[in-house]
């Protein structure tokens, strides 16, 4: 394709040398860098030498926490058109599991506010209407994480929340005020 412009055609020896160099360089990069960094294999010890091995580590499903976890049970009675907000104080990467069940339909909004930034930075994870939700939650940032429930029916609804997790305290926001609920760790440590 290059024949018109290229005055000096490459010799077939040069073409072969170039191709061989391309292959050798690729194999060298593969063995010295790509295998350690991407696959955790270090056949030549270069991954260790260059500090590339750390890149090849798979994400560990185990995540260490420094405190004993806590368990919580809470019940709210919501009269027609009343609402309540209940949130846990959690650090970055803290997890919890939860189930809440109500004896009537509620509007819910699971959301979080980053620590110290307030409502305008709130992030909502799911909203909907229903009698129950079960799930697990992994805090994407430090802050308060929880639910807003609203009874939009004409009947009184009782809601029960069960949860366990690496949270510290919880806060109830209700009727224009808020109060903190301490939750004790499940065992002494």
């Amino acid at each position: 394709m290059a024949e018109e412009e290229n005055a000096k055609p490459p010799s077939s020896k040069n073409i072969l040398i170039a191709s061989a160099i391309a292959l050798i360089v690729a194999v060298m990069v593969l063995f010295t860098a790509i295998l350690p960094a991407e696959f955790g294999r270090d056949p030549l010890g270069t991954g260790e030498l260059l500090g590339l091995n750390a890149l090849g580590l798979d994400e560990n499903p185990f995540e260490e926490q420094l405190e004993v976890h806590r368990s919580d049970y809470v019940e709210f009675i919501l009269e027609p058109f009343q609402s309540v907000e209940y949130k846990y104080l959690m650090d970055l990467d803290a997890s919890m599991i939860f189930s809440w069940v109500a004896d009537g339909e509620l509007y819910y909004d699971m959301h979080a506010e980053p620590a110290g930034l307030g409502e305008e930075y709130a992030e909502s994870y799911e909203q909907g209407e229903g009698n129950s939700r079960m799930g697990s939650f992994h805090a994407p940032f430090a802050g308060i994480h929880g639910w807003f429930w609203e009874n939009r029916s004409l009947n009184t609804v009782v809601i029960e929340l069960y949860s366990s997790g690496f949270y510290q305290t919880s806060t109830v926001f209700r009727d224009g005020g808020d109060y903190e609920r301490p939750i004790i760790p499940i065992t002494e440590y």
Partner: protein
Amino acid sequence: MLVRRPLFKKLLAGLLFLLGSLVSISAFGHTIEGSDASFVEAIDGPAIFPFMYLGAKHMVSGYDHLLFLVGVIFFLYRPKHVIQYVTLFAVGHSITLLLGVLADLQVNAYLIDAIIGLSIVYKAFENIDGFKYVVKFQPNTKIAVFVFGLFHGLGLATKLQEFDLSDNGLVTNIISFNIGVEIGQILALSFVFIVLSLWRTSRSYLRHSFATNTALMAGGFMLAGYQMSAYLLQSPF
């Protein structure tokens, strides 16, 4: 007059250039990831623009497809020829993308991606006149681009097949993805063509074309080696 420099110096310059550009690429594995992935799985029904966006994004960020196209248009000076070859490539990959997903062809993504890497090697070897002077037989360049287009399309199909795609709106979504791929390809190609055209006005273009294509070839070997390693070493889950 062209300055004649020793072969190895030219090669070194080209390879350093390529290595430099590879360093900036953090991950070799080119798949649909993160929030895009969860979006694709959650979708149920036609979603034209999201899939178009994903197709375009896949192409613009897909250095395997892009390196191949750099090789294809490297010696194409006239837009008419660029359009001819790129259309052949697009027709090729559209066929296998659509067929692959719709007929649920099960091909190994790593092996296909390794072949895509080798398609870059092939094109670079062709560009340094390897077929003309070493093999002494030049396969039809248009057919080659079309055939490699078929493989690139299979690669695109495997990326979509990694997900549990809902049958609801599947055809619309694949066609949208395909259109997105073409849009992304036009965007990326315009950029590559402009850069190559600018470079062509300088004398260094032909002088470095041999080294550049050798570097391209090394890049193709690397991608193929990376994908073969993944095929051989990575756990299946």
